[in-house]
């Protein structure tokens, strides 16, 4: 058991500057359009650094007994690239399993591009 297998991580480059990606991630109407979170998911902003990183508390009604919920944390990190685009990194982890912000999770990283 290491931290490498306790989070889902995706990284890719996006053909838009961080300011634009930030709006797609932080404005609810845009978020709804691409994320389509579903009726059983509640999202709440936990931490926001404009144009740099955004962390949501992802609360999902469980499929078991009533009132059972699953808490997880989704963090989007945006880094400007030399070409004027954005290097995008998404980390999704169960809330109860802390993931070191700077850990090198090479094993769990999947290229989404």
């Amino acid at each position, binding site marked *: 058991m290491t931290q490498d297998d306790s989070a889902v991580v995706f990284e890719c480059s996006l053909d838009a500057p961080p300011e634009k990606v930030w709006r797609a991630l932080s404005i609810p109407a845009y978020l709804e359009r691409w*994320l389509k979170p579903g009726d059983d998911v509640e999202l709440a902003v936990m931490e926001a650094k404009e144009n740099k990183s955004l962390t949501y508390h992802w609360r999902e009604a*469980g499929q078991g007994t009533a009132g059972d919920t699953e808490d997880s944390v989704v963090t989007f990190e945006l880094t400007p690239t030399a070409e004027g685009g954005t290097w995008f990194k998404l980390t*999704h982890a*169960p*809330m109860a*399993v802390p993931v070191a912000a700077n850990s090198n999770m090479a094993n769990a990283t999947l290229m989404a591009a």
Partner: protein
Amino acid sequence: MSDTDIFKVLADPTRRAVLERLATAELTATDLRAGFAISQPAMSQHLAVLREAGLIEERREGRFAHYRLAPEGLAPLHTWLARYEAFWPGRIDSLKDLLREMDQ
């Protein structure tokens, strides 16, 4: 055992360290305490929680109890990870589509 429960069990750093040690060897409670500033009753408590969660197994040999990882113990965590590894790629594609449609 629900996913949520297993995550609570794994939230404790001592319990995660115990699982890491047991990943490579079967050990007694005394072996497991080596290097930890932790009392014997506290370690027993952690081991009990891990056993109840189905993450470790105990084998008695005379006065000694030996502990090892339970083979299927982390299955709920792996199920959770697999679900979101399947979920995100399509969403990231949708994000790329939206970025093309948005105004500057």
